[in-house]
């Protein structure tokens, strides 16, 4: 089903919208949640919560890409759940991508700044716009979706080594970009 049709179903309050989103984007969303939580039952719970959240928020929101909108919801719900459970274990792809990103800000622990979250998002979007489309996708797959290098490799046809080098460079570039913007 086309994305526009799915959004229309939400707007006419047809429950078919839920099953359409689940069918088209459920697997990817579930993988994002599972990469963060490393617990299939928690990931499934996140999936159901996210479908409900989408039902409650569309309308009034009218996402251009219901898939991206849905994955965004589940990613943020999974991270919230992860933080609640965090003390238990540290072994997910999210932990790894989290640690990688820590490198970007590792030397600023002594400088406490109040950062406006929206402004920070704007800087990250600027940074993503400065990348090639392929590199931006790789960055999003890694740090938004917490995909493993193997998963990214299968979606890009690049070797894991190649992806790893690109991510390393992108983290360094992001760090410079945030520094220039006074974010750190």
């Amino acid at each position, binding site marked *: 089903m086309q994305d526009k049709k799915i959004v229309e179903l939400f707007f006419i309050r047809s429950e078919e919208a839920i099953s359409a989103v689940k069918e088209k*984007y459920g697997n*990817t969303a579930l993988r994002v949640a599972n990469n963060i939580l490393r617990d299939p039952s928690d990931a499934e719970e996140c999936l159901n919560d996210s479908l409900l959240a989408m039902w409650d928020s569309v309308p009034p929101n009218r*996402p*251009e*890409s219901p*898939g*991206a*909108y849905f*994955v*965004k919801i589940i*990613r*943020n719900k999974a*991270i919230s759940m992860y*933080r609640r459970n965090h003390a238990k274990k540290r072994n997910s792809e999210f932990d790894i991508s*989290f640690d990688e*990103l*820590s490198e*970007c*800000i590792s030397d*600023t622990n002594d400088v406490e*700044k109040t*950062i406006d*979250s*929206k402004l*920070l*998002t704007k800087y*990250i*979007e600027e940074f*993503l716009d400065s990348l090639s*489309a*392929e590199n*931006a*996708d*790789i960055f*999003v*797959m890694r*740090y*938004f*979706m917490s995909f493993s290098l193997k998963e990214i490799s*299968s*979606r*890009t*046809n690049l*070797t894991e*080594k*190649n992806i790893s*080098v*690109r991510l390393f*460079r992108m983290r360094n570039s992001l760090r410079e970009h945030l520094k220039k913007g006074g*974010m*750190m």
Partner: protein
Amino acid sequence: MDTNKLMDAIGNIDERFISSALNRKPKKKSKRFIAANFLILFVGVCLNMTTLFRCGSAGVQDDNVSPLNVIEHNGAYYEQVDMNDTAFLDKYNLPHEISSDMTGAWLGSGTDPNGIRSWNLYSYDPYSKIKTKDGRSVRSVYINEEDGIYSFVLFCNYTMSDHTEFTELSAVYGIDEWQDIAEITIGDKNYTDEKDIKRLYENFVSSYAMGGDDFDAVITDIVTDEFTHMDILNELAATAENIRMISKDGVVTSQMTYYPTINYIEWALSYFRLNDPAIP
């Protein structure tokens, strides 16, 4: 700022970025890309590994060897030298003839896949006494014996290696510090002064080592609309300079190539990103 804030901020990026990543399909490698990859291998083989081809266009052709055979020993490939190629032997400070007293310890034997030819491998006795600081022997030159006929075999590269540190490769030639080196030649520039040797060697050993995939990513990153993958490879091949190091014991390193355009060295299937230009 902490990482949680960064993660949260990433979580709020515009949906167009997420949509693009969600919809990315694995791209099929184009024939051009495959050809470019082949060329990288071919350039690597021609300029540096010296193994299977004589390369007519690059400036480092003189150091190539046409091996009579390639053998594997102790996790590395070795190329059998044509003992009639005296000019080549001279370049490597090796005698034109091998007598039985030059053979050191027996290292092993091998046969070809058809079981027709068999050979014995020996250490090269004049080098067997040269040790690195940690006691490793020179492993760059061995002697092959087949039906009573001797020939040299030269280290080519490790068989299983994503990349090898520069110091690991130089140790194969008995070099593990700058004081072990008598001279370094890059293209037509020869350095024998200790200050130059120290500067160059320290530049080499402080380089960042990477394997072929990573180097390919480096090349891919500098491709523009103006300069294609092929243009860049051609430029690298045209400007490549051979690097030779001769130790104070007379052991000659081989198969090193310097790419001044991007300031990289290629050696035995590994690539080294230098911090400073090798030729000032």
